[in-house]
């Protein structure tokens, strides 16, 4: 008797496992479709004729499949506003901010993690304290400062405040602290300078943390909207997000054009993401544990 009950339990568990297996996949697939659908909808619209968008749809699938492929929307979007210029502006600003952030944060992170100097811990506490302040608090005085310097509507106004982050310094300092000291001590005995240790030992050992900071900073400044909106006023200096907003305000009903512009704005992000996915996942875990 006892053995049959055990077998029963086993069989019941098998049935349960199969059911939950199918339910899980159904859930995941439906969810993934809901996530991807808006992107497909965007792509289709960008390839459609303008009048197709407004045509009454008899079936639910209309609007998902363009009646014919119109790639002219992309060319037209480029002609209506200087999209290529916006792209270049965004690339320039993003690269400057990313390189600057990684450079200054890693230098300072090294000083905080490894060097002893008077007031180190007090200064570090000051850095930490500002992490809790809403960014908008500093926005107003920084804007006033930049306008008094006459830097409003220049790239400096976006780049300079962007490359000094307490967050990046904190992240890298925490990572540097976790590195073993033995290598550095050996290098020191061999007569390596402090900069040499930073450049030849600490940085190469910190690739995961540096990659995380790089991807986050890159994404953050690529999509940054509020600050560029505040400081930029001339069209030829617009970054891509401001450019799309501007494009939208000019052609608020040309949905095919708007979608073509959106596809072009998202494409580089998708490419970067596919290549850096690992660092995102690791970076998120890292920030979660340290926080």
């Amino acid at each position, binding site marked *: 008797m006892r053995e049959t009950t055990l077998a029963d339990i086993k069989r019941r568990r098998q049935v349960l496992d199969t059911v939950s297996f199918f339910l899980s996949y159904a859930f995941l697939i439906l969810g993934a479709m809901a996530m991807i659908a808006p992107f497909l909808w965007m792509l289709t619209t960008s390839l459609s004729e303008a009048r197709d968008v407004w045509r009454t749809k008899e079936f639910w699938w209309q609007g998902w499949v363009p009646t014919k492929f119109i790639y002219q929307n992309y060319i037209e979007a480029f002609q209506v506003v200087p999209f290529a210029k916006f792209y270049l502006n965004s690339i320039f600003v993003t690269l400057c901010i990313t390189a600057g952030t990684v450079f200054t944060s890693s230098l300072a992170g090294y000083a905080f993690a490894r060097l002893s100097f008077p007031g180190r811990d007090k200064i570090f506490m000051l850095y930490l304290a500002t992490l809790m302040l809403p960014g908008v608090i500093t926005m107003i005085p920084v804007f006033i400062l930049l306008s008094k310097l006459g830097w409003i509507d220049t790239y400096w106004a976006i780049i300079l405040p962007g490359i000094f982050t307490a967050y990046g310094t904190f992240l890298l300092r925490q990572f540097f602290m976790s590195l073993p000291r033995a290598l550095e001590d050996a290098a020191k005995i061999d007569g390596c300078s*402090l900069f040499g240790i930073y450049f030849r030992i600490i940085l190469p050992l910190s690739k995961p943390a540096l990659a995380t900071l790089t991807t986050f900073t890159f994404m953050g400044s690529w999509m940054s*909207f509020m600050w560029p909106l505040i400081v930029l006023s001339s069209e030829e200096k617009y970054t891509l997000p401001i450019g799309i907003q501007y494009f939208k305000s000019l052609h608020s009903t040309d949905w095919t054009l708007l979608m073509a512009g959106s596809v072009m704005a998202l494409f580089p992000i998708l490419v970067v993401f596919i290549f850096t996915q690992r660092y995102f996942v690791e970076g998120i875990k890292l920030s979660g544990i340290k926080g």
Partner: protein
Amino acid sequence: MFNTITLKNSTKEGLAAFLFLMPNFLGFLFFTSLPVFASFLLAFFDWHLLDPWSKATFVGLDNFIVLLKDTFFWKYCWNTVFLMLGIPLGIFGSLLLAIVMNQKIKAIVFFRTAYFLPTICSGVAIYVLWMHIYNPDHGYFNLLINKFGELLHIPLRGPQWLTDEVWAKPALVIMGLWQTIGGPNMILYLAALQGIPKELYEAASIDGASAWQKFWAVTWPMISPTTFFIVIMGIIGGFQSGFDAAYVMTGGGPNGSTTTIMFYIYNNAFVWFKMGYAAAISWFLFLVILIFTLFNWKVGGKVVHY
């Protein structure tokens, strides 16, 4: 033991530290710490951006008193809190998704990428896309609602979404859920779930616990530090959010129904140039965030298991 070596030549090291720190510290000084003080002082002054400094007048606590009586401000506070409804919903969704994904799923990378895409692509282009989806005449949402109604033989008509005072906020919440469910929170939950020792579940099985009981007795307490982190970060971010999407999609309307605190600060500072008042609102915002965070720490300390 070897650390004693670093103590030698302390002046030389101090100088080196100074050089290492300088690029970052100068920026920190001019773009973060000094502006914090300036902003604090500014909150007690009445000053218009286009006026010379000499016209700035000290008004004491007037900015804050005006703020407390500002009915628009309270309305925008309510809007901000309403939009933060997305936080608990999003946490629930992320956790559910992480639990499903924490099985032996084939093509896990595909699913993770698919769910992460909306987070990665956030930004103006996505807001424009969702304006298209919410369009009452040709948007996909109302098309689906129409077809669904036809299926049931009742004339269903979708709302005007972004131009309807009642539906504009829920529309932003729905979009926010789509953006965040598969994002960082899901990945944090997934990592937390993977970190739970298998023995705990085995022990629970031996005790005859059902899947539901295992969740409440093992999973939920074990992931409580992650939940705590997500809630705190969500609330801090939530109070400061809502500008980008509202600016692009609704302009803060209709009738101010999607204007958040951040949007109001933006308007005061950079549209109406009322710098003192804007600084006062931003400090009020800080105070609200601080109170919520402290409250969270206090409650969290009792609920969270480490």
